[in-house]
């Protein structure tokens, strides 16, 4: 089941973070590495419309639907935030619309995200999640209307 894929990926991330043993410098280093692995987002997609509202840093996030699955592209002007958005992209990319929409992103709590990125960035991170769910909802509505 694809939902298991989302959870498997979350579990992998929880595992990775647990190995960092709460060391803030290592966690930041890990996030930056993840961000560097994120596929490059075309400049043409970095528009005002694609900026996630509620983030201190600039975060661009787009979603495309193909065969009922969602494909995300993202970037940020700061390396750590790019790492944060890449966490979400790596977990949810190629997920089915309903799976993305209903995904329980328990990894956020498990890795203690709030504790190490602080309240302001956590709010920004929640804005990214909200934006992803909004994309999923929009595509669901679109496909239902077309059907």
């Amino acid at each position, binding site marked *: 089941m694809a939902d298991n894929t989302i959870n498997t990926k979350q579990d992998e991330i929880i595992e990775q973070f647990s190995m960092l043993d709460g060391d*803030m*410098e290592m966690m*930041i280093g890990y996030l930056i590495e993840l961000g560097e692995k994120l596929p490059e987002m075309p400049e043409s997609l970095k528009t005002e419309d694609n900026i996630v509202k509620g983030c201190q*840093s600039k975060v661009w996030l787009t979603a495309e639907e193909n065969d009922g699955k969602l494909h995300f592209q993202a970037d940020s002007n*700061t*390396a750590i*935030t790019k790492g944060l958005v890449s966490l979400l992209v790596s977990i949810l990319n190629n997920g089915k619309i309903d799976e993305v929409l209903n995904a329980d992103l328990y990894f956020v709590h498990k890795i203690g995200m709030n504790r190490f990125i602080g309240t302001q960035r956590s709010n920004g991170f929640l804005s990214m999640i909200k934006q992803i769910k909004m994309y999923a909802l929009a595509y669901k509505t679109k496909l239902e209307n077309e059907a």
Partner: protein
Amino acid sequence: MSTAVAPKLDIQKIRKDFPILEQKVNGKPLIYFDNAATTQKPKQVIDAISEYYEGYNANIHRGLHSLAEKATTAFEDSRKVFHKFINAAEVEEVIFTRGTTDGINLIANAYGRKFLQKGDEILITAMEHHSNIVPWQMIAEEKGAILKVVPVNAKGEISLDEVEKLITDKTKIVSVVYASNSLGTVNPVKEIAKLAHAKNAVMVVDGAQASSHCKVDVQDLDCDFYATSGHKMYGPTGCGILYGKRAILEEMTPYQGGGEMINNVSFEKTTYNDIPYKFEAGTPNIADVVALKHAAEYIDSIGKDNIMAHEQALTRNAHKRLSEVPGIHFYGTAEDKVSVVSFTIDNVHPYDAGMMLDAKGIAVRTGHHCTQPLMDHFGIEGTIRASFSVYNTIEEIDFFADSLKDIVAKFS
């Protein structure tokens, strides 16, 4: 450089007065370089707050009982200490506020609203904090006045020639920051006051950053108003002072009404209390004002000259060591500056640097520092700002510079 500190100061002994500095942050000893945002508090100040609440908490000025008397005396003692601290001519010229922002809003509303007319001009500089921009914009909009801005040069300085050119017969208020929070620049406010007075404008000094880093003598500066915050000079948050010359304060109409500020109230007419009370409506922040006195006394006990010498040594050292960081660009290289070092690093976003420094236990500020027009002038979104205080050490700056080099290496 490590011996370049003022010889009289025992920094390790001073650090023991600040309990917060003993802690670890993210497993590393705290290095607190965000002093321009707020300084830490010595235990003399912290204890004064507890002693007030444990020993003599009461509302001030009208109570006849012993606690009220004791609280009133302590509150008014603080006013007396600040009268001397800024060398005001009279005790009554010291008004307690919530801080610099509150003080400037008071001037804009109680002076500006009464005396500004359509077409009058208010002059500020391009390096002002938002708190010395927005209150003037608001009153200018209301009164049809015009806000004019003195430009800054590449070093982050203003020129007196420019100021002189921009002060006209229509200028009614000149409001300038004494020491810039983003750049550290110390402005020649005494000379600007002369230029303002030559055209019969009043001179407002935003002293938020200056009070713990610069000599403050309001009579020597000959400013008409001086606003400052307690929390940037080792005192509590939420309290500050506004100095105003008696003659001007007496002409002004209070903009906040309530208890304390009245002489007599009837439904037909209210008469206002004398200065300073007519500007202190409502129960003030008694505990913090009482503790603020201890902050001023703490500064005096170390000696402002000694503090300034130590901070200057730290700042010179920081500029020297940080120059070793590849891709660094400094903003604010004025000849006369307080202990603020503001910079960007190629390919490293200030937010990333701030968070990576935090992971190493180093607290700096990143962003626009509430001076967006200044950041626009330099064509940047923001900077990384390290600001030093009396309890900081050369060793901390060395660790800071080495940490920045590590961070840059991670991004190259």
